C-alpha cells in the first residue's frame, strides 16, 4: 500500500517555498511583524523606510543611533507621532508631524523644540533670543542629524555651512592675509558660538581681547607700557576674517598708525607719500627711503606695539 500524505498534495512544497520566502524576507519585512531595525520603537517607521532614501537608516551611524545610551531618542521623538502619516492608505500620504528637510512647512521653532528638548544646556543655553534664533534658523539649517559626518562639526567642512550665509567672510578668508580658515585649521566655531553667547558677535568669550588671547596669549600682558587701542579692542586695528593688508590689519602702516599719530616725535615727517619711498621706487622720490614708510613702516622701530615690558619701552620700541 502506498503511503499517503494527508492534506493537499502540494502542501509540503508550498510549506517549503513559504519557509524559504518567509526567511528570505525576514530582514526586510521583519518590521511588518514589529521588529526594530535601528532605534527602539522605530518599527512603525522602518517598516517602510528601510532603505537609504533620505538617509533614514543612516541615523544608526550617528550618536543618535546609539541604542545603548538610554537617552537615545526614537524616530517619533523628533518627527512626532505622525499618526496620519502612518495610517494613511493610498497616494498623497500626509507628511510626518515634523519634517526637517529644505522647504519644510514645519516652523523653525517647532523643529528646534525637537532638538532643544534634550540639548537645551551646555553651549546652547543662550539659544533663545540669540542672533541666529532671531533670524529664523533651525538647528537643522546647519546640522545634518542623519549623516554620519555632520559637516558643520568637522573642521575641514564647517565653513561650507557658515559661508552659505556669510558671504563677506568667505571672500575675506581668501585674501592674502587671513586666519587659516580655508586651510581648515581655524574654523568659525573656534571663536564664535553660533548658538548664542554673552560676548559680542556671538564670541565664545566675554570680550574680543579675551577671545584673541586664547591663541595669542603672549599679547595679553599686562605690560608695563600699554598701547591704549590694544587693551581696548583688537578690532581697532585688526579685521579677523581676512585683509588685503599684512597681519590682518584694517589699514596698512604707516597710515593705520596715522589714524591716531600724525606728529609725535616725527612731526617733521608730514604726510607719507611717494617721496618717502625713495628715488629707486618712485621717480622724483627722496634720495633715501624713509624708514617710517618701507618694510614694516612704523613697526620697524615700534615693534612691541601690543605692549612693552622693557623699563625703557614707553614708546614700544624695546
Amino acid at each position, binding site marked *: 500500500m502506498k503511503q499517503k500524505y494527508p492534506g493537499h498534495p502540494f502542501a509540503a512544497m508550498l510549506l517549503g517555498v513559504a519557509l524559504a520566502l518567509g526567511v528570505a524576507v525576514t530582514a526586510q519585512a521583519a518590521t511588518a511583524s514589529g521588529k526594530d531595525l535601528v532605534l527602539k520603537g522605530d518599527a512603525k517607521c522602518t517598516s517602510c523606510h528601510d*532603505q537609504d532614501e533620505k538617509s533614514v537608516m543612516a541615523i544608526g*551611524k550617528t550618536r543618535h543611533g546609539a541604542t545603548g545610551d538610554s537617552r537615545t531618542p526614537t524616530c517619533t521623538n523628533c518627527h512626532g507621532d505622525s499618526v496620519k502619516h502612518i495610517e494613511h492608505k493610498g497616494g498623497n500620504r500626509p507628511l510626518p508631524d515634523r519634517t526637517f528637510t529644505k522647504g519644510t512647512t514645519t516652523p523653525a521653532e517647532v523643529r528646534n523644540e525637537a532638538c532643544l528638548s534634550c540639548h537645551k544646556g551646555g553651549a546652547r543655553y543662550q539659544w533663545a533670543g540669540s542672533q541666529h534664533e532671531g533670524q529664523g534658523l533651525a538647528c537643522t539649517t546647519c546640522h545634518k542629524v542623519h549623516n554620519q559626518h555632520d559637516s558643520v562639526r568637522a573642521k575641514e567642512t564647517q565653513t561650507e555651512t557658515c559661508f552659505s550665509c556669510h558671504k*563677506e567672510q568667505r571672500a575675506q578668508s581668501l585674501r592674502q592675509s587671513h586666519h587659516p580658515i580655508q586651510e581648515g585649521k581655524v574654523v568659525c566655531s573656534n571663536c564664535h558660538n553660533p548658538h548664542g553667547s554673552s560676548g559680542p558677535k556671538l564670541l565664545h568669550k566675554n570680550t574680543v581681547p579675551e577671545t584673541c588671547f586664547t591663541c595669542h596669549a603672549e599679547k595679553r600682558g599686562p605690560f608695563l607700557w600699554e598701547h591704549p587701542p590694544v587693551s581696548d579692542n583688537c578690532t581697532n586695528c585688526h579685521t579677523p576674517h581676512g585683509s588685503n593688508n599684512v597681519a590682518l590689519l584694517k589699514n596698512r602702516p604707516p597710515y593705520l598708525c596715522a589714524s591716531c599719530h600724525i606728529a609725535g616725535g616725527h612731526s617733521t615727517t608730514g604726510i607719507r607719500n611717494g617721496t618717502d619711498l625713495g628715488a629707486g621706487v618712485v621717480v622724483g622720490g627722496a634720495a633715501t627711503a624713509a624708514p617710517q614708510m618701507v618694510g614694516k613702516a612704523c613697526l620697524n622701530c615700534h615693534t612691541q606695539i601690543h605692549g612693552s615690558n622693557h623699563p625703557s619701552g614707553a614708546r614700544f620700541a624695546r
Partner: protein
Amino acid sequence: MKHAIEKRFSRTVLAASIAAIGLSVPLVAQAEDDAQNLTTPDSQVEVGVGNVSSGSYKFGDYGRGMQRSGAHLIGNARTSMRSSDNATYLDLVARNLGLDSRSVSIKGGEQGNYGLSFEYDELMKLHSDTFMSPYNGMGSTVLTAPGGLAAWAATIDTTPGGAINAPVAATNVTSVMMTALAANMKAFNVSTKRKGTALGVTKQLAGGWDVAVNYKREEKDGTKLTGAPFQIADKGSRGTLLAPEPINYTTDLFDVLARYADEKLQAQVSYHASLFNNANQSLTFDNLYYHANSVVGASTLTGALGQMPDNQFHQVNASGGYSLSKETRLTGSLSIGRMTQNDAFLPYITTAGILAAPPVASLNGKVDTTHADIKLHTKLMHDAALTAGYKYDDRQNRTAVNTYFYMPADNNSAATYPNNATSSNNRRNTPLSKTQQVLYADLDYELSKATQLKLGYDFDKITHTNEPTSGDTEHTVKAEVKHSFSDTASGGLAFAHSDRNADTYNGAAPLFATYQSGYLAGLCVAPNTFLYNGVVTACTGVASATSAATIPFLDTPALMKFFLTDRKRDKLRAYGNVAAGEKLDLQFGASYYKERYPDAEIGFGLAKATGWTANVDANWAATEAVNGMFFASFEDYSTDQNGHNGASSATAPAITTLDRQNNTVAFDPLTGTTVRTDRSLTLGLGFKVKQDDSFDWGGNFTHTNTAGSTRFKDIGSRIAATVLPVPDAVSRLNRLELFGKYKVQKGVTLNVKYAYEQYNSTDWAWDGQTYTSSTTFIGTGMTSPDYRVHVLGASLTYKF
C-alpha cells in the same frame, strides 16, 4: 481519485524546499548585511603620493604645508566604531599625515557615561623665504655682527672726513657702512610652527549633572621678524632693521566645568586658566650702525629687546538659563578673572654701570576682569517676541605706578638723556582701566505670515582711565524687514544708525599722567598755568613770535583718536533669495556702511571710513548627477585721514616742541587728506559630476584680485610740490582644482587630484627696496610673493 505523491517524489519536494531555504539564507544574510551597512558607521583610510612642482612659502602657508617642492605622502584616515551591544564608541580622524599641517583626533568612551579625547595638531606660519640679514646666530637670542663690530667700525674709519669718534655726518657714516653690510647678507627663512596637544575627559553623573576636564598645551617655535632699533648718534637719531626674533612659547590651557540640566534650569560653573611661558626673555643684537659712544676697543654696543613676558590668566565662571514658562526664558552669566605678569625687568640699557636699576625688579602687574550679563527673552504674543538684556564688562588694571627712565635705544652714554626735574625721560606707567555697560532690547514682530519686522535699540556706556576722554555713550537704533514674496522668492532690508558722544576730549590728559610737571611746564609759556594732579602749575616757557602755547601739549592739537572720539555710523544691508525653478537657487546681497568722526573732520586723524560690498551666488542642480555653483563678491573699503605737515627744524622759522600749539606756521589747519582704499574682487566657479556609481569628477576655480591704493587730496601749498603718488599694492590669486574619484572595486576608490595656483603681488614696502635704500633702515631683500605651483596627487581610499 485521491492524489498521492510518491515517497521518493515527496522527498524530492522536501529536499527542494530545504534547498530553497538554504538558498534563501544568503538572501537573508544579504538583507541583514544591507541593513547593517545602512546603520553601521563607515571608516576609511586614504594613502597616496602627491607632488609639488615648486616650493613657495606663500603657497605652503598655514595648513597646507606644501612649501617645499617634491613628493609628499598623502595620508588621511577616518574611522568610527560603535558597539551594537552598548553605547561604547571610538572615533579617529587623522589628516595630512604627510605634511606639516598634520592632525590627529581620537575620541572614545561610552555615550551617556564617560568620554575621553586626545587631539594633536600642527600649524605652520611661513613668514618669509626671501629674508636676508648680515647677522650671525639667526634663530638664537644672540645676534652678532659678522666679523665683530670692530671690523665694521674700521669701515667707518674710511668715511671721508670722519674719524671713528668724530664723523662729519652720521648719514655719511651709515651709508658707507651699510654698503659694506650688503655684501654680507645671508638668507634666513622666517617661520613659526605651532604644535597643540589636548586631552579631555567627560563624565555623566546622576541627577542631571555632568563634569568635564580639558587640558591643552600649545608650543610655538620658530622666528618672526621684529624691529631692532639702535642709536646712530647722540640723542634723536636712530637706525633700525628687521631681525629674526626667536619664538619659544608654551601656553597651557586648563578648563574644568560642571554642568547641570533639567527641563527648566541649565547651569554651569567652570574654572579656566591660561598660562603663557616664554623661554626667551630678550633678544640681543650687535649695533650695525655707527654710534659716537660705541668706542671701538673700549665697549661695543649691543641692543636688547624685551620679549613677551610670561603671564597668567585665571577665571571662574557661572552661567545658566531658566525657563520661566514656555514663552519666557532668563539667562545670565558671571565671570571673574585676573591677569598677572611678573617677569623680571631687563636693565634700562645693556651697558652696566651707567644707569641705576629700575625702581622695581618686576612689574607685578595685575588686571582684574569682571563680566556679568542677564538676558530676558519672551514671546509677548503669538506674533511678537522681545529680547532685552544688560551686559557689564570691567577691566581694572591694578598695576602699581612707578617712574622709569626712558632711553629710546641702547646707548653707552646717558649724558645726553638727562635725569632731572625737567627731563622728558622720566616716565610713569599709566595702567589702563575700562568699564563698559550695554543695555539692549530687540523686538521681533510678525506683520503677516510673509513679513517680519525687527526693531532694536542699544545703549552703550564706556568709562576709562588715562585716556583723552573719561568715556563715551553710544545710542544705536536698528530696523530690519524680511519679506517672502512667494514660495520661491524672499528678501530683506536692514538699517542701523549709531551715534557715539565722547566726553570732553583732552589729548594732553594721558601726557599729564606720564610726564613730570617740570617737563610739562616748559611746554607752555608763562604766565599761563595748568592743573597737574590737582596742583596749579606755572608754565615756564618763553613766549615768542611763533610760540604761544597756553597748556602743555606734545601732540597735534585737534588730533582725535578714532576709537575714543565722537562717531556717527550708518549701516545698510539688503539681501534676496530666488529659487528660479527647481534647479537654480540665486542669492544676492549688498551692504554699505559709513563712519564719520566729526571732530576729526575739522581736526586731524581718521575722519571718515566707508565701505560697500556686493555679492551674488548661484547654485545649479542641472540633474541629479550634475551640479554647479558660482559666486562673486566685491568689497570696497576706504578711509580719509586728515593730516598735516609740520615744518622741520631746518625750516624758517624753526619749529620746536614749544611751537606745536597755536603755531599756524608749523600747523596748517589742514595740510592734506590721505585717502586709503582697499578693493577686492573674489570669484568662484565649481561643478561636480556623478558620472555613474563608480565615477565622480569635478573642479573648482577661484580668483581673487585685490588692490590697495593711496591717494591724496586737499593738499596745502606747504607740501603740494613735494607730494608724489604712491603706487598701488596689488595681489592676484588664481586657483584651479580638478578631482576624480573612481571606484575600483567595492570599498576601494582611486582618487586623482590636480591643482594649479598662480599668485602675483606687488608691495612698495618691499619691492624695489634695496639694503641701502634708506640710511636708517637696513633693507631685508624681501620681495612680494609671486609663484606658480602645480600639485598632482593620486591616492587610494579603502572604505570599510
